[in-house]
């Protein structure tokens, strides 16, 4: 089942009895939201109804060309991309030839295993074991960076960590105010300057502030930028350097926010952001719609970047640790 936040945050002490408490919390959340898994499936059910898609209940009748075509279309429709789709279908066909797939159950089992293997890349944890740890959040416009930061801060606070937010999106109108509201909601200080000021300076201030307040984690919000805009990507590299100069080895995490509704361009985004600032993990946002977020498969498959968190709604608790098995099952089970 889905990992707990204790497991995800590397460096958070687990107080005695916390596991049970966490268990309770999860139970509570389940009641409230019907559970992430259920919601994902509900989303899928809706899309099936709307589109009468190939996510059909009769995905496995017999091992024939039509089955492979159905599988291919399902993966393509989930935005997994042509290359990853071909790789998965090839692997499945090979396993079928080896006699590993004879029944419907085996088919799904092997499919899940194939996806889990793809998602095995890298460390799933978020490193907050330094003092202060710096988390840099990057991504193209409108992928949900600021919202994600608000939610991560909330979870960190729940784990007993003190958090400082850095409003380094000094470009978009009202971005600073938006982060400010999250800061108020979550109850952590937001270090900010005027709109249009140098984001590097904001980051510098934020780290100094974190030191003087003895805070555990600094989360840096950056302006959304298209990965094709060289000057903006240069600016991002500069922010990265400013952080590294203040704290050796920082940022300890660089999270790329990717919108689950994104198509194949998500792969290019991940590639170019990684080249610029060495992305350590992906946050897949907006999974509460009907989009399947298959671009995560493509990103893990081709770039070996781990998917660390998923966003499944607007509420604070709607940010979850990523679980490959859940994700795979939500994609394919009826």
């Amino acid at each position, binding site marked *: 089942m889905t990992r707990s936040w204790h497991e995800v945050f590397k460096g958070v002490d687990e107080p005695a009895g916390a596991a049970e408490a966490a268990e309770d919390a999860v139970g509570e959340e389940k009641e409230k939201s019907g559970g992430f898994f259920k919601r994902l499936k509900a989303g899928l059910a809706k899309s099936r109804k709307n589109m009468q898609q190939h996510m059909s209940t009769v995905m496995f009748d017999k091992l024939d060309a039509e089955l492979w075509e159905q599988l291919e279309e399902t993966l393509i429709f989930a*935005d997994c991309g*042509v290359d990853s789709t071909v790789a998965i279908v090839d692997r499945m066909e090979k396993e079928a030839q080896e006699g590993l797939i004879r029944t419907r159950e085996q088919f799904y089992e092997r499919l899940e295993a194939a996806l889990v293997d793809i998602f095995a890349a890298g460390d799933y944890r978020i490193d907050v074991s330094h003092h202060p740890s710096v988390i840099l959040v990057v991504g193209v*416009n*409108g992928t949900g960076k600021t919202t994600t930061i608000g939610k991560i801060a909330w979870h960190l606070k729940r784990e007993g960590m003190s958090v400082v937010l850095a409003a380094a999106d000094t470009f978009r109108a009202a971005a600073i105010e*938006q982060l*400010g509201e999250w800061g108020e909601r979550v109850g952590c200080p937001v270090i900010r300057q005027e709109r249009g000021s140098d984001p590097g300076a904001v980051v510098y201030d934020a780290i100094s502030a974190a030191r003087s307040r003895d805070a555990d984690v600094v989360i840096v919000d950056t302006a959304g930028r298209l990965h*094709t805009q060289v000057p903006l990507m240069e600016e991002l590299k500069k922010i990265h350097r400013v952080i590294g100069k203040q704290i050796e080895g920082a940022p300890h995490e660089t999270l790329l926010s990717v919108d689950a509704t994104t198509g194949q*361009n998500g792969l290019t985004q991940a590639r170019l952001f990684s080249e610029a600032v060495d992305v350590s993990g992906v946050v897949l946002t907006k999974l509460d*719609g009907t*989009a399947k977020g298959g671009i995560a498969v493509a990103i893990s498959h081709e770039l070996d970047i781990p998917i660390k968190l998923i966003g499944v709604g607007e509420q604070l608790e709607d940010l979850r640790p990523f679980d490959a098995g859940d994700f795979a099952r939500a994609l394919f089970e009826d």
Partner: protein
Amino acid sequence: MFDTLSDKLQDVLGDLKGQGSLTEDDINKAMREIRLALLEADVNFKVVKHFVASVKERSLGAEVMESLTPGQQVVKIVHEELSKLMGAASTKLSFSPRPPTVVLMVGLQGSGKTTACAKLAKHLMSQGKNPTLIAADIYRPAAIDQLQTLGEQMKIPVFTIDGGDDAVEIARRGVEAAVESGRDVAIIDTAGRLHIDEELMAELVDIRARVKPHNILLVLDSMAGQDAVNVAEQFQEKVDFDGVILTKLDGDARGGAALSVKAVTGKPIKFASTGEKLNAFDYFHPDRMASRILGMGDVLTLIEKAQATVDEKKARELEEKMRKAQFTFDDFLEQMQNMRKMGPLTGMLSMIPGIPKQLKQTQIDERELDRVEAIICSMTREERTTPDIINGSRRKRIAAGSGTNVQAVNQLINRFKQMQKMMKQLSSGKKMQNIPPDLLKGGY
């Protein structure tokens, strides 16, 4: 990045010179390439199926089978069919005979609605309209602040109710205020919402019923994947939008979702949003989008941009100078500034078909161009017209004045001389030879 579809088709079908005739098998191979290319461009796979079927039918006809250049013929067919599918011509907004014309903007979270509202307002202003903005996104933190800031920048009034928690009421009173203040267009920004969120979709239905908009525009992210079809269908069912604004087109997404949405809903793409600046907004051109999906470059846009930024008389003067090889540093500077008005150079390069891939991938550092500008600006007038007088001590002065070093100044002067030479060759009718491959690259 993958090869463009036109390259691939050329590989598969090639020229028929010295070969027999084309077989159906060849055509099938070509269709597979088309299918993959469209899927990579995020066109919905159902739409792709239909599309490939119709292209195949035409490709089996005489115009391809008997052609000497079947590869090019198929590309032509694909391009034509794509343009046809995406709508024959650009479609404008419908204006109410009794102002204000009300425009309602809807879409998913993060698709770029608020920015698109501001850009549309600016676009309408440039057409002599007198728009107002209505901020009815009561959910996202600071969304209203964002629209207000943008409104201030453009000096366009933004209506909202402070602390209001009823989007329908804000929209209604906003339109009333537009009537009172004599504004002829009212653009309503709404909260981003999921197409399956019953409650929020009901709110949109209410707004629509209350303010009776003349145009409902769905804002769609050009990076959207296969699910765009679901989104568009749901929004169509609930609020029956009239057209689409395609955003973030300044990225490198192929934008196949636009094609899917048009194919599934029949609604035209009306506008394209292409950059961070508020004037990066224009009518949508189906044929250009077809080229983009195919990876064929976008010459038309480039030409238009060039026309908009280069003064024709000056261009003629320049041509004259080039012919007489009197091209000076002043001309060079002016040319460069004109070019930069058209947008980032990398963006421009990607629009030109036939430019070698390596060159397209060269990251042109805009700061290098800043440096070149600085160097030229540090020259005296005399030095700019007769660069030959620039000796060692002048070079030192220029380097100090521009904050660069002598080496950079040397490099620029050398390249400038190469360019002059090239122009002489051109004007004397000789073939252009040995264009230095690094002419456009940084490193001055």
